[in-house]
């Protein structure tokens, strides 16, 4: 099933200075929300987003949260040409994903315990295009809700060359909650 976001809805999603929740299958009967996928990449907004996702999980009774750290391919800085560069790239990736995991785990440790202990959370680092991989991942693991950071300053080129949240808006793999943490400040 494909979803189409009209131009007004699109504009609201982009320009709204508050958080936005997009539902792809609105229904009167409540559908249980089991699994939430949250972005965990390195950004000042991420901390708030992760916190928000735990709040939502507790409120909706979701059992599982996956924190996905998207790591840009350019960070690996090794192109795989032959066996030796493949080995180097693999080692470097392992190191990067370890770093990212500790960073995300640190964020969660700082959250109040009563918030996190009811939810089963895991981390997953993905090397790939930011914004795109998480949407594809949410689809693969059949997540019910995807929680993303809001983006700042979307210009004309961001629409021409879609990135981050634009990929998600183009395909809407699941319900999406865009957390705008700037508005609280």
């Amino acid at each position, binding site marked *: 099933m494909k979803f189409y976001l009209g131009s007004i809805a699109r504009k609201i999603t982009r320009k709204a200075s508050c958080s936005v929740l997009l539902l792809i299958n609105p229904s009167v009967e409540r559908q249980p929300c089991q699994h939430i996928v949250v972005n965990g990449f390195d950004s000042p907004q991420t901390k708030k987003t992760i916190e928000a996702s735990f709040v939502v999980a507790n409120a909706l009774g979701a059992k599982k949260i996956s924190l996905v750290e998207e790591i840009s391919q350019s960070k690996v800085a090794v*192109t*795989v*040409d*032959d*066996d030796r*560069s*493949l*080995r180097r*790239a*693999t080692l470097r*990736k392992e190191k990067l*994903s370890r770093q990212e995991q500790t960073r995300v785990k640190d964020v969660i440790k700082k959250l109040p315990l009563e918030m996190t202990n009811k939810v089963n959370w*895991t*981390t*997953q*680092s*993905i*090397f*790939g*295009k930011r914004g*795109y*991989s998480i949407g*594809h*991942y949410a*689809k*693969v693991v059949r997540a019910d809700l995807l929680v993303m950071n809001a983006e700042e300053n979307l210009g004309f080129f961001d629409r021409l060359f*879609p990135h981050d949240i634009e*990929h998600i808006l*183009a395909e809407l793999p699941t319900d999406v909650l865009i957390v705008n943490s700037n508005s609280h400040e």
Partner: protein
Amino acid sequence: MNKTSSAKQFVVDLPKNIFSGFVVSLIALPLGLGLALASEAPPIAGIVAAIAGGMVVSVLGGSHLTITGPGNGLVIVILSAIIGLGEGDLYQGYLFTLAAIIISGILLFLFGLFRLGSLSEFFPSTALQGMLAAIGIGILAKQFHVMLGFTGVKGNTIKQLALIPDSIKSVLMNLSFEFLLASSIGLLSLIFLFLYSRIRNPIFHLIPAPMWVVIASISVIYYFDVVRNNSQILDPALMITLPKDLIGSLPRPDFGKMLTSEFIGHTMSITLVAVIESLLSIKAVDKLDPLKRRSNINKDLRALGIATGVSGFFGGLNVVTVIARSSVNVNNGANNRSANFFHAAFLVVFILLFAEQIQKIPLPALAAILVYTGYKLAAPENLFRIYKVGKEQAFIFLTTLVATIITSLTTGIILGIIATLIVHIFLNKSSLLFRQNWLKPNVLMYLEEESGNYYVSVKNFCSFLNFFKLKAKLDEIPPTEHAIVDFSLCEFVDHTVMEGINDYSQGFSRNGGVFEIIGLDVHEAGTEHPFAIRKNLPGKSFFNLSISLTRRQRLLQELSNVLKWNYLPDPVSNHGDLEKFIYFKRKWINYSYNSLESKEKNSLLFDLSYSEGAFIAKEDLKSTFLQIRAPYKMPVFVLDKENLMSSFYGLSGLQDIDFKEHPDFSKRFFLSGEDKKGIRSFFTDDLIFFFESHPLYYIESKGDSLLIRGKERLASIQEIKQMLAFAEQLIKLLKGKKT
């Protein structure tokens, strides 16, 4: 491995590589001369290309076992450049073309520098094969006349094809002795080339077929020269001429036409074909590498670019990676790049020492070699194989083939791409899927943190248009790991992708990893996804022969009933741990069929289809094997008939283990293995006596199981019974030894 030990290993491997380089140079010499002549360039141009290629690419390249030199594919483009740019004057055309070659070398270098190697994935595999077939027909059409002794036939491919009956007729009409001699040299050479792979004699195969042709035809010419005192038995136009002074007569590339659109067009098509031919060959050779290394494609392209520039400067043709010579290289035991260097070095020696003999090579013999290569490229089997994949693939193949012959190579391949696209749109009944998702990322790959498996999910569609994206991700997975590719979110998978994925799957199983493809079962059920069901995937039997059994199969079935074993006639492409046997190190296993398995599952008899070499040098073989589980852990060894070949193995580091007290056994058998002490204590007197008193089999142990093979062909029922009896007694003896 540290520096000193790898240097030591290099020295240890040197004899193997020198030997292999020598054998390859024996093919490279006639092919180099022939390919240059076929493109209307001076014969030495091909040798210059091979020498430049060997010297430069072996030092700067990024692949391990490839041989570089003048390529078959380029004959047609270089020919049309020489004729087109020369406007009647062939030598002037050659000088202009040299400039085009130098520029294409620079372009090739830039291709490698900007890592554009992966762009070659953008060509649908069927269209590429159609293009190669068209090149083959082009070579065949032109050289057929030369093979019969006519050098004057001009015109495009279609015209030349149409003139073939005329040439045959004029041979039959014109019964002068010189004429008959020329055409019979050509024809006999061609017949010999076709029969060569049928003769499975290792000593005979030590010298490659093209060299046999050259040696035989030179001796004929010498016979007339010396015995009959007739030094000009053949028309001088049918003989090779080399420049007297090699250095002094260097041609000067003429950049005069550099800015004309014609020149640019020729340069582009030369570059395009050079890139395609090289990348296809590098990929194919990587599959044959016994050490399972991965080539650095972009580094190799840079080296090929430099080599082409050097070659063009010295009057040579383009340097590309060539598959036929490379697979001969692999088969003769080369294991590093130095073999390529030595092949070039031997060519230098040949040119300096045997210039006079080389000029005795009659053109019909060389033309026969080219007709054979052309035929191999355009063989009708290729079309049947593609037709089996699907009717629409045959359509794409024929479109590209015809378009390439009628127009030019670049137009042909572009039309091939368009035809493929149209077929895809037609099969989907809409172009929406492709238009919407072409430029979007569609591949997700991550390391599952719980299981440690690599998971790859592909979305929307996956065809030649975006296969490079999937490939880039798959290349990042070490082939020793467990990879899962999921197509369940993907609506359309084309033939190019299925073929590419199959290569990965085989690469993983060679390296001990696991490559699983999931999510395609859904596609098989749906009628709108016919591409997905085409390719054989591991673990599946892919075509059904059980409808009618042959006589041999019925006898096998009866035998299985007597023995109470299980018989399965169907081909199975899941061949377990066979690849771990040394015998299959340089061979490529296709599928096994007619398998007989004992109830306890410790003996398995099967016919196996496997191949040696790749592409036009590929030889498909079928033999019967028996694999039995060893009663206990045995040393790893190979026991084979002692022959001339085994003394060459001695040269390449594998040593024959001889027993002083059993001179007869040592003389008849070639026994080798790493663990010499273990093997010596394993081969006790009664075991040696057993081998001496029974028929000779090829026997290999890999520790936990034994592989037994009779002759290098399918065994008859009688032979199978003997083999089974032999194995039974052997196992009994081994079990007795244990207690």
